[in-house]
């Protein structure tokens, strides 16, 4: 079977490398990464790929839509991959955040392993992003709680442990997060000084 030529449109170098790694596991392909959005249509037309993979939320997707519609005699018809017979795969791809444009006539069984590999990588990105956001939020929470504790210690002459206990009790009484109570306290203290 001939090697498939795949283009990955991805600005972030780190992400692009990870996608390429994932795709290589699914088979021997000729993979090109395009990381610049200028001249995208021309670059893709020059390469004549079998499959183009791009983030669902990438604004440049509309450029690919135009390529998909172009049907000059020298051009190969391309279409966004939406397969009625395998709706689950399409849905999985879009939910993971990857869209695929495939050349007309490419066998579905050749597309599937590639899409599966891309979906797996995109899921990983989501997880990493969610983890990063959670870590960041936790850090923010800690900072604000520390400031609230300091305010309480100073205002009421109590130690750190007592200050935290007070915050926690208030949060429990009000059915709120400790960080939210701390936030309110810091804001109110800001107004009073």
């Amino acid at each position: 079977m001939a090697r498939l030529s795949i283009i990955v449109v991805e600005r972030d170098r780190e992400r692009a490398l990870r996608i390429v790694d994932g795709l290589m596991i699914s088979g021997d392909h000729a993979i090109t990464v395009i990381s610049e959005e200028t001249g995208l249509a021309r670059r893709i037309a020059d390469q004549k790929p079998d499959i183009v993979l791009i983030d669902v939320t990438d604004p440049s997707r509309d450029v690919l839509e135009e390529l998909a519609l172009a049907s000059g005699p020298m051009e190969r018809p391309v279409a966004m991959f939406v397969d009625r017979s395998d709706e689950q795969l399409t849905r999985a791809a879009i939910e993971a955040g990857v869209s695929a444009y495939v050349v007309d006539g490419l066998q579905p069984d050749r597309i599937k392993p590639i899409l599966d590999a891309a979906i797996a990588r995109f899921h990983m990105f989501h997880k990493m992003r969610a983890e990063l956001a959670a870590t960041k939020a936790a850090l923010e929470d800690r900072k604000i709680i520390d400031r609230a504790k300091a305010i309480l210690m100073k205002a009421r002459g109590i130690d750190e442990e007592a200050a935290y206990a007070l915050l926690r009790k208030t949060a429990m009484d009000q059915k709120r997060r400790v960080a939210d109570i701390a936030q309110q306290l810091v804001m109110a203290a800001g107004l009073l000084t």
Partner: protein
Amino acid sequence: MTLVPLRLGYVPLTDAAPLIVAQELGFAAEEGLVFDLIRLQSWAQSRDMLGMGGIDAAHMLVPLPIAQRLGLGPAYPDFDLVMVLSAGGQAIVVSAALAVAMRAQGHGFGFDDPLAARSALSGAIGAVPPGRLRVGVPFPFSTQAELVLRWLDGTDLADQVSIHTVPPPLMADALASGEVDAFCVGEPWASYAVERGAGTLLLAGRAIWAAPPEKGLVLTRDFAGTRPDDTGRLMRAVWRACRWLDGPDNRGTAAEILSRPEYLNLPPELTERGLLGRLHVSASGEVRHYPGFIRFHDGAANFPWRSLAALLARRIARQHGLDLPWATERAMDCFRTDLYRQHLRSAGADLPGASARIEGSLAQATVVSAEKGQMILGADAFFDGETFDPAFAAR
């Protein structure tokens, strides 16, 4: 009262205002709804989200549901356009090289004269490589593409022009880097290119066609059919927001709301230009006043005339080699004047006697008879005086 949540997709543009205002100013809550407004990055994403059920309704280019119905997109459930959200708001912008050459010919960039602008462009065509005028539009199926091609139809320029899709936020860069020579886009992206020093405003979309429908409220036929009550509430909430947006003195407030980080995330001063019809044509601050540059309501702007669908389908069918009567019929079928009448009658919307008309026949706003009493239709003439009769196209 518990509010019914609806997920609405929008692409960050000035003309997303009806959905944003409906939520922010309480028109949605008034109808027992709360909008979860989802910012999307491309029209392809909007179409896919709606097709896959990721959103309940979308702010969408008017020709996009037509193209879907003509089979020019992925196989998704049928889309319906239930009301027009805005008319106008587009501008044609030219590169620095073209602007210099046009000024050298004595063109004054008045922004409102399509014939003067066209002949100036013709005279300056030496500023681009021979036989190659590249014009950017936001999407292959867009009112912008219709406006540009109509403007150049029947001239030498029509043989030289090629239309290229460029995502609006990238248009200023595409112009600056010489990827395109001009573009047609909705605000605030035309003003953004001016502000970046990349382009000069040449012509308002409304100068080419007095009432070019720009965005519509689009949902799946399945949603409109199975959730008629929510469809009606959604339409009324958005329709009232449109009416508010055309109220005197509301545009400044609208600019403030739209500019917030969670929506357009641009300085209000920039967003305001199109909304107030006070546009800077160049970075040196030449201001042009264009009253009614964008309309959200007045002149029956929201009515989804079936004849508009037929008109927009004509060029798409021609470009893609589709049978014209077939395309006309299918296109008209997705503009739901029936739902507009059914759901907006109670809100007090003006309802015209017919659901299709001869497009381009009104040189100025005209009083006509309506379902009840009379109503005012806005001007809808084309600059070239063409009129379009959908009955003729369908035959």
